[in-house]
Every structure is written in structure tokens, then in C-alpha cells.
């Protein structure tokens, strides 16, 4: 196993009495995409801000690229590119002016600017403020590469993007990783978590509740998938026959919880013949991050119900 490129030991952030990040420890391996998952307010952004030196560490330690985040700030800054959860380049400057400005701050060669503009097909002469949100995000990601850092932090890079832009961003994440960079990716999008990271950590209320490879973590919450089914005609006898899969209605579809998809398909074929209906649509879905959390915290507390105990959700 290669040495960790990011290491957090008992990392803690308190704002007054409130503990936003509560003694988390983890390691990110060189060259991997590390997914940092959690619902809103879990402490993802705070963790990124601590690791990138944007906010002080209340307690614990962090090392990035072998440097102590608390003591070797400048070396850490030169090792990391940070894509924040907002697209924050300068609105009145063109894309090229923005990149040139950052190249000067990082003392990076100016060739990087034209190369990045070409590689990522950016509209160089357009003012950043005039770009669509997808291109703003793309430019913000490119801006993090200006000094060619080995580690990239990305804080919910697809949030508030349309489907096409989100896909483009995911492709960029993969491309950056293929080119050898380590990516620390925070998200609360389970689909993203299913496709991008090599390993993930799940954080809730400032604590890590699961960590490991994708499948390892998925096993922690069981192998269930959601099957979405649309049939015609919809009879009560069908619902009755599917009782074992806790059927629920969502618009005009039935949503079922299924563990063994193959066995379920066989059973569905039988039912079709017996009860006489047609399947108009069938698809499977992975549990949403909220459901994963519910499962995890249920196991922890040994009870069903709201995962965050007493929260208004």
C-alpha cells in the first residue's frame, strides 16, 4: 500500500460551543478519488476548509502531500488545487485574465494558461460573469490546475448544475484522476458516489460513520436496490402478490425493495403470466444517501425512525 497523501488525525473544528467536525481520522491514498459523502451540514466543507488552510484547525492534525497543514501552510498551498462549492472567479475579468492572474499568484508558467484553455476548450475571451453556470464550474475547476498540483479538493462540484454540465464535470474529475492526481471529492449525490470514487467515507454530524471501498460501504447498508416498476393494467392482485417487497407508489410507478434482482425477475415473469399484465417500464435504483444514512444510524441506535433523532426533518 502506498503512503497516504492526505492524512487527518482526530481533526476537529468547533465554532463556539458547536462542533462542526468531531475528531475525524482518515487517510487518502496517492492517486485515488476519495469520496467524502454526507448530507447538508455534515461537515464536508468545513473539513475541506481545514485541510486547505482556509480555516484554523481547532484540534487534531492534518498532513497533505507530506506537509503539516498547521505549520507548512505555503507548501500545502502549492500542493493543492481547491474547487470550492461556489464558482468564485472574478466576474469582470475574462477567463484568460482570471487564469493569468492566478498563474502570477502561484508563480506558475504562463504557458499553463494557454494550454489549459486549449485542453479544456474554454472561451478565453469571455468574461467569467457572462458564462453559463456549467462553464463557470468548468473554469473554476481549470483554475485549480493552474500550478499543476498533485492533490485536488472538490467540494460538491456538481451541485446546482444541469444534467449535461454535471456529466461534463464528472468526466473532468475522472480525467484529472487518470492524469495522476489525487482527488478529494465531497458530495451528497449517491449516484456520483457510486460511479467516481475508489474509496469513500461517510460523514454525518461531524463524525465518520463508514469508510472503505465502495462495495464495502454499500454492504454496510445491505444489498437492497430499489426496483421501479410500471405495469398495465394495475390491479390490486399485483400489489398483493408483491407484498414481500414492501411496495410503495411513486407517481404512476411501484417502487419495491429488492435484494436479489435475478430471483425477482423470475418471479415477475411468473406473475405476468398468472395475472395477465404488461410491464411498461422497469429500472433499478440505488438507495439514496438519506436512506443509506437511515440504515447506518438505525444500526447504531438499534431503532428505526429519523436518523438524526429529534431533528425536524
Amino acid at each position, binding site marked *: 500500500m502506498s503512503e497516504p497523501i492526505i492524512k487527518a488525525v482526530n481533526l476537529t473544528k468547533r465554532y463556539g460551543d458547536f462542533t462542526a467536525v468531531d475528531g475525524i481520522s482518515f487517510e487518502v491514498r496517492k492517486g485515488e478519488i476519495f469520496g467524502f459523502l454526507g448530507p447538508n451540514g455534515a461537515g464536508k466543507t468545513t473539513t475541506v476548509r481545514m485541510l*486547505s*488552510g*482556509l*480555516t*484554523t484547525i481547532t484540534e487534531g492534525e492534518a498532513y497533505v502531500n507530506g506537509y503539516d497543514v498547521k505549520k507548512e501552510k*505555503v507548501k500545502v*498551498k*502549492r500542493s493543492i488545487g*481547491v474547487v*470550492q462549492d*461556489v464558482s*468564485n*472567479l*472574478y*466576474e*469582470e*475579468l475574462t477567463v484568460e*485574465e482570471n487564469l493569468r*492572474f*492566478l498563474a*502570477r*499568484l*502561484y*508563480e506558475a508558467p504562463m504557458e499553463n494558461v494557454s494550454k489549459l484553455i486549449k485542453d479544456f476548450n474554454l472561451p478565453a475571451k469571455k468574461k467569467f460573469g457572462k458564462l453559463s453556470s456549467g462553464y463557470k464550474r468548468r473554469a473554476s475547476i481549470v483554475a485549480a490546475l493552474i500550478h499543476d498540483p498533485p492533490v485536488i479538493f472538490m467540494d460538491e462540484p456538481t451541485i446546482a448544475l444541469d444534467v449535461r454540465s454535471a456529466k461534463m464535470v464528472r468526466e473532468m474529475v475522472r480525467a484529472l484522476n487518470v492524469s495522476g492526481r489525487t482527488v478529494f471529492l465531497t458530495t451528497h449525490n449517491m449516484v456520483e458516489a457510486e460511479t467516481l470514487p475508489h474509496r469513500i467515507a461517510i460523514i454525518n454530524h461531524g463524525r465518520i460513520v463508514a469508510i472503505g471501498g465502495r462495495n464495502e460501504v454499500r454492504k454496510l447498508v445491505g444489498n437492497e436496490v430499489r426496483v421501479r416498476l410500471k405495469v398495465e393494467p394495475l390491479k390490486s392482485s399485483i400489489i398483493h402478490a408483491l407484498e414481500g417487497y414492501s411496495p410503495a407508489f411513486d407517481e404512476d410507478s411501484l417502487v419495491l425493495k429488492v435484494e436479489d434482482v435475478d430471483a425477482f425477475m423470475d418471479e415477475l415473469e411468473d406473475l405476468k403470466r398468472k395475472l395477465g399484465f404488461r410491464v411498461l417500464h422497469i429500472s433499478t435504483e440505488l438507495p439514496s444517501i438519506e436512506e443509506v444514512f437511515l440504515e447506518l444510524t438505525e444500526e447504531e441506535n438499534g431503532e428505526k425512525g429519523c436518523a438524526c433523532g429529534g431533528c425536524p426533518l
Partner: protein
Amino acid sequence: MMKVYAIIVKELKEYMLKPGAISWGIVFPLVFSLAFIARFGDIDHLVPGLVSISALFGTTSFVSSSIIFERRLRTFERLLLAPVSYGEIILAKILVGTIFGLMVSTITLLLVLHFMTYPLWSVSLTALNLVLSNLTFAAMGVYISLAISNPINVMTWLNLVRLPMMFTSGAIASLTLFPHWFLPIGLVTPMTYSVDGLRYGILYYYDVVPPLASALAMVFMTLLFTLLSIRALRRLY
């Protein structure tokens, strides 16, 4: 220093034409000066005050609108993420405010010069005091913009400081015309030193502070506000 220069150029491109810099930074001081010219024919004694007011509003409006924008849109964090020291960031913000304030106050000076009875006394001393005034006010503006925890409140605080200063500094009515007990208030007003310094350069007399003392006071205040700004920035993140 290259980084400071890069930040200055970026600031001018980004914020020169923003409403905050234009309205309070350019339009207000010029209209204010024109109003005085129209009201009183003989304005010689008002010139230092009008120029100082232009410097005050030019610098503080520019730096505060840029810092408020950057704090709210979080472009400020771009600077903090880069390998740039707090000192370099503060220095760049103060210098760009000074450049903008110098532009506004020089325009004001050239404008009001036309309406003066006597010629300007010393170009070099006037220029020196103009630079020191703008440095002092820019540093003060940066400090206020960073010391207030919620950027939405910065403008309110700024006006709470700079509007009364127009009266407690002798910019509009000489401090010698006020009762004696008012003098200490005048002396703790940073702007007093700018007005009296400019008065000496332009008119060859001063009201309360001798020229060397006002110059030293402005150098001291610039350094003080610079250090306070660095500390405020460190507290903020």
C-alpha cells in the same frame, strides 16, 4: 512584489466600474465639491477640505466595495488559498485604494483650482500630503471592511465613521472656529491631519497641526491600520 502588482491590476479591472466605487467614490465627492463651488464663490479656504473629502470617499468606497464583494462572493478566498501572505494581500488592497483615491482627489483638486483666488502654494508638499492622505484613508477603509464580521454591515459602519469625520476634522469649518473643548475631538479624528497637511501644501498655513506633525501622524496611522488589517484578516478566517 509581483503578486502585489498582479492583485492591484486585477482589482482595478474588476472593481473600477462597480456601482459602489462610482457612486460614493467618484460621483459623491465631485458633486459635493461642485455644490460648494456653486454656493460660495470664494472657496480658497475650503479647498484642502474638499480634496481631503474626495480622498476619504474615493479610497474607502473603492476598498470597501471590493472587499465586501470578495467576502460575499468568496473570491477573497482565492487570495487566501494561493501562496500569498496576509501582508501582501493587505498591502495590495491598500495600494489599489490609494491609486483610486489619488485619481479622484487629483481630479477634485484640478477642478477646484480653477475657482481659487490665489495659486496653489507648493506642488510637491501638496502631492506628498495627497499621497499620505490617500494611504491613511485606504488603510483605514481596509481595516473597517475586514473588522466587521458581517460584510453587509460594512457600509453602515463606514458611513458612521466617515460622515462625522467631515465635520470633526475641520474639513468644512475650521477647528479654530469651534469652542476649546472640541479640539481633542478634532485631534483624534484621523482626517484632521490630512486636512491640515493639505492646507499647508495648498495655502501655506495650518489650523491646528503643524506640517511635520501631520505628515508623521499620517505615516503612523497608515502603519497602524495596516497592522490592524492584517490582524483582522487573520481573525476572519
